[in-house]
């Protein structure tokens, strides 16, 4: 077992770090305040290969292995202080690009992947509905056979990138009698299709630069060529993309935690109270020691899950363990950093206040902490 990054991975990490620090952090506070998604920044990230990391070069991506993909996202999370932008990239990449790459037909891969990788197309995953969240397959959106294709009707909510997406991976019931397995199908639905409507955009606590909203489908006709992963294959496709998302999206949070840890160390070594640096107070130092422990443990869990994506036929257990630990560590770390910064941590002027707001959602998206515990318990035979 070798825990060191190889030469290529070290170069990759360094390049992404420098890029993110140089290009992505300008006016973050303002963008967060105004909830602005900047397509120019998306394009810059695409030029760096970030919007298609594991996609083979034949389809326009850099063709990284899954572990290197996680290392790249970790570096992006460290270098980029705009967590909303990072989240949008990960939602696009892991819940849309990866399933197209893994389960798409050659025609679908050739049609979508080059644009999704080079930044001209943005994708959204449309699963959640107003009445189905964690119980995702209680969905009401239906796709009924019509001519040489399907008519899709329904409303999707909490669609990350929904307001700006050019194409959506939409899950719909095709055979309610079959239920979870065999009854759900995923479709590639272009924004330009008649009946596809971007409805309300949500205002939210954190990740405010990542647009999220509702998509409405009213008699949207898609040809049978739009079926992704076969009719009835939606549940497996969704589970697979969740493995990638839980394993790799949360790599970005390791980078965030590491950046916050370094800020806390720097701050507490210079901030003086009662005649000494506050880092000399054990109550402060112990919080920072815990942050370090969480970063190191989180990285091992995430890298192990990401490594397994190409080696095991299911990493659901590792991905759930990793997602649960990282998200809860992230929230704990951000709250501790605010505590360490004291009153300054409460001000918008410093990053830490925004980091708390951005962190809270991590215990909700990609399956809540409670769902992750259910998954872990299930794999343990409980």
């Amino acid at each position, binding site marked *: 077992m070798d825990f060191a990054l190889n030469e290529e991975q070290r170069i990759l990490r360094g390049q992404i770090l420098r890029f993110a620090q140089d290009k992505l952090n300008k006016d973050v506070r303002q963008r967060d305040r105004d909830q602005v998604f900047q397509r120019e920044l998306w394009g810059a990230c695409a030029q760096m290969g970030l919007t298609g990391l594991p996609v083979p070069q034949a389809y326009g991506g850099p063709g990284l292995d899954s572990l290197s993909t996680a290392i790249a996202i970790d570096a992006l999370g460290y270098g980029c202080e705009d967590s909303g932008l990072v989240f949008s990239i990960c939602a696009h990449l892991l819940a849309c690009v990866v399933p197209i790459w893994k*389960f798409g037909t050659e025609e679908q891969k050739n049609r979508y992947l080059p644009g999704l990788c080079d930044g001209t197309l943005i994708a959204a995953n449309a699963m959640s509905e107003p009445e189905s969240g964690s119980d995702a*397959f209680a969905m009401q959106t239906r796709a009924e056979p019509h001519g040489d294709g399907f008519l899709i009707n329904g409303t999707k909510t909490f669609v990350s990138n929904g307001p700006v997406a050019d194409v959506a991976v939409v899950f719909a019931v095709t055979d309610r009698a*079959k*239920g*979870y*397995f*065999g009854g759900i199908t995923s479709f590639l639905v272009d924004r330009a299709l008649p009946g596809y409507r971007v409805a309300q955009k949500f205002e939210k606590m954190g990740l405010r630069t990542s647009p999220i909203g509702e998509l409405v489908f009213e008699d949207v006709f898609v040809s049978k060529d739009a079926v992704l*992963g*076969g*009719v*009835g*294959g*939606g*549940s*497996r*496709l969704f*589970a*697979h993309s969740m493995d990638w998302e839980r394993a790799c999206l949360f790599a970005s949070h390791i980078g965030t935690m590491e950046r916050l840890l370094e800020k806390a160390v720097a701050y507490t070594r210079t901030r003086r109270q009662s005649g000494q640096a506050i880092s000399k107070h054990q109550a402060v130092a112990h919080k920072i020691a815990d942050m370090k422990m969480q970063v190191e443990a989180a990285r091992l869990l995430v890298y192990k899950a990401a490594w397994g994506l190409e080696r*095991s*036929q*299911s990493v*659901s257990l590792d991905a759930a363990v990793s997602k649960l630990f990282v998200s809860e560590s992230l929230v704990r770390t951000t709250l501790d950093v605010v505590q360490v910064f004291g009153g300054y941590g409460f001000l918008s002027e410093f990053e830490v206040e925004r980091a708390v707001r951005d962190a809270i959602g991590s215990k909700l998206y990609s399956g809540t902490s409670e769902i992750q515990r*259910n*998954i872990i318990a*299930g*794999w343990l*035979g409980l």
Partner: protein
Amino acid sequence: MNSIQIRTMARDFILNEFLPGERPENLTDSTELITDGILDSLATLKLVAYLEKSCGIEIAPDELVPENLNSIAQIANFVQSKQAST
């Protein structure tokens, strides 16, 4: 791997993982696993992961349907057909 071996393997896995304490004779080759609620969504994915690893097959998204997995007999037929096609 013949049909009997696959049935035995699948039965042992289901009893051990999802029906602890159940009498083995109550799980027959035709017991409905998905439609009778023995396998929920997570359990089905766990069974699929086990079959893929143990039998050296890869199950496509649209093959994960009750017609292939709803009973031990169907599982055996499905696994055998996958092995024959690889």
